[in-house]
């Protein structure tokens, strides 16, 4: 698990290094994602050829359907917004040495709570009041789901990997029950439309985005990334969090209450994933619908991995995976859109595989030592 945390060169290693530390850091950050993209491109070629199509044509189609027109770009931005939140969620927890596989359930609960707040508020509540309340509801919803693995980890040392997986299933079953029996519009699996708290779409300002789901929750996502970067690298609490992630025992000796940091990291991660639900509920549909998360929580793991657990890296990685996801729809008429699911998985496996390999490579480049 430690290999996922950004490698910080040991002080002693710098002196013997033939490459400047900044160069090795850049290589170790950039080489794995690029290798992964290359491998994914090759696998993509094979899949496209197996369907009897020309890879070049399909890739051109994929780019044209995403970055080539305003609607496609809007959809990419919309998908990247959710992925930024779930990516930040996974990255923040990983910085504390915790694996948050529960972003999927936290995302769903966040969306659900945003919808409930939006339904409870009277119609005509001014947006300045309603939107922050819905956002707070989403964050609290996500954090409350994450509190289960957080408390169990801090109190009993229970494996957060296992607990987050199990809590995902429990949360989704609970939400299914609530939607199926209590809150749905007849003959549907979604809640009624919220009375207040809707966030306008980007197309209300820029006409050419018309039809795409991109909305101003995007601003919240970017602010969340900025906050995460500030929190991690500019605050005492963030320093403690990173220290616990690198060496929990050493942090404990340094006077950090490790259990408390773990719990705080999980709550923060849950709040981030929960906020992701507002992109769909407040910005797009104005209701909660069963299954809206659709794997975006699990994709957060890929986003954090490729973004190397850095908040700004997460934003870029979110754009990459959003492009793949939207690109699948763009090429669906020619090759099955499931091709991009395969490519996404290939990227994750290739990055996870090449990160330790690149680090070993860099170690051997450094003179001296073994």
């Amino acid at each position, binding site marked *: *698990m430690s*290999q996922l945390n950004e490698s910080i060169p040991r002080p002693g290693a710098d002196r013997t290094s033939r490459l400047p530390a900044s160069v090795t850091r850049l290589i170790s950050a950039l080489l794995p994602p690029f290798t992964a993209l290359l491998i994914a491109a090759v696998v993509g070629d094979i899949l496209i050829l197996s369907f009897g199509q020309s890879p070049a044509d399909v890739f051109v189609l994929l780019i044209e359907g995403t970055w080539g027109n305003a609607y496609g770009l809007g959809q990419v931005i919309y998908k990247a917004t959710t992925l930024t939140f779930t990516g930040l969620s996974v990255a923040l927890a990983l910085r504390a040495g915790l694996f948050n596989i529960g972003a999927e359930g936290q995302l769903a609960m966040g969306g659900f709570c945003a919808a409930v707040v939006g339904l409870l508020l009277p119609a005509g509540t001014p947006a300045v009041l309603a939107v922050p309340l819905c956002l707070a509801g989403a964050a609290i919803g996500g954090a409350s789901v994450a509190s289960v693995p957080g408390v169990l980890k801090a109190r009993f040392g229970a494996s957060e990997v296992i607990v987050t997986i199990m809590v995902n*299933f429990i949360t989704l*079953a609970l939400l299914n029950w609530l939607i*199926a029996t209590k809150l749905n519009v007849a003959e549907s699996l979604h809640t009624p439309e919220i009375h207040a708290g809707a966030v306008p779409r980007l197309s209300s300002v820029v006409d050419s985005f018309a039809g795409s789901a991109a909305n101003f929750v995007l601003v919240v996502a970017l602010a969340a990334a900025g906050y995460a970067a500030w929190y991690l690298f500019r605050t005492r609490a963030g320093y403690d969090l990173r220290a616990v992630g690198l060496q929990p025992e050493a942090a404990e000796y340094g006077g950090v209450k490790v259990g408390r940091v773990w719990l705080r990291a999980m709550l923060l991660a849950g709040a981030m994933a929960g906020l992701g639900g507002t992109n769909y509920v407040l910005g797009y549909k104005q209701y909660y619908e069963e299954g809206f998360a659709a794997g975006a929580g699990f994709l957060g793991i890929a986003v954090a991995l490729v973004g190397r657990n850095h908040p700004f890296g997460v934003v870029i990685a979110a754009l990459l995976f959003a492009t793949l996801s939207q690109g699948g729809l763009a090429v669906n008429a020619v090759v099955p859109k499931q091709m991009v699911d395969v490519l996404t998985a290939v990227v*994750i496996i290739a990055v*996870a595989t090449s990160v330790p390999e690149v680090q070993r490579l860099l170690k051997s480049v450094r003179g001296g030592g073994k």
Partner: protein
Amino acid sequence: MIVLAFLVQTLRIAIPYLFAAAGGVLSERSGVIALTLEGWMLTGAFTAVIGTHYTGSPWVGLVCGVAGGVLAALLHAVACIRYRADQVVVGIAINLLAVGITRFFLRLAFDSSSNSPRVAGFDFVQTGPGGQGTGVLASLANPLVPLGVLSLVFVWWLLYRTPFGLRLRAVGEKPEAAASLGVGVNRVRWIAVLGAGALASMGGAYLALEQHQFTDSMTAGRGFIALAAVIFGKWEPKRVAVACLLFAAAETLQIQLQGLQLIPSQFVEMIPYILTIVAVAGVVGRATPPSALGKVSE
């Protein structure tokens, strides 16, 4: 009669869990996290249907199913053992890969995004029109049923009655100590992971051949229930078998009582997951994983 029907249905539901959990125990006791059970099952289900479809023989299908599962396990082993990639990340990615790749090839082979055509199964007892069996026991006339029951017995025998099992347990608990005694740590893990892939894929093949077709994402979380059984059963084959049967019995009860609507089905679904959380939190008798689980050895 009702009791018999209940027991038979419990066993039928338990078979895929038993197969996958046997694989889970094998893999995790060697120190490799088995988050991939779901993906291996799904791959096995798909390749089993492909094999049966093109040859008409469920036996060939079963062999293809196992081959598919072993292939998926091979990818896991290369990434996690050869290249020491993070097992949790790769495990989740392989689950995504299995969903994506089976959907892709479903479109390629059958031009459908939801299901394959009907294929043969292990039908030794002729079923009546409408697919209803002539008796509850007819559904058990399937070679995969005894194999499934025996899968955890086999893993128990392997772990506790063979030299290889001793080495495997040592590798999962104290890899350095095992290595210093000349045990090839990575070789043992390779065998364990490939074996786990083969076992889990038989669970997938059973599902697909019993339903006579492959449907999109048909394993529907069963690999994770099997993982829950492994953890709830504290990585001990006997306890894991009991956990599988317990989870299957809860499911059967829910299906049989559906008409009465005593408890919503969603709450019954939660039972395995809640029990597993209680087990890892250690409220009553803590579940402690093999100590080298998820750790790579240099």
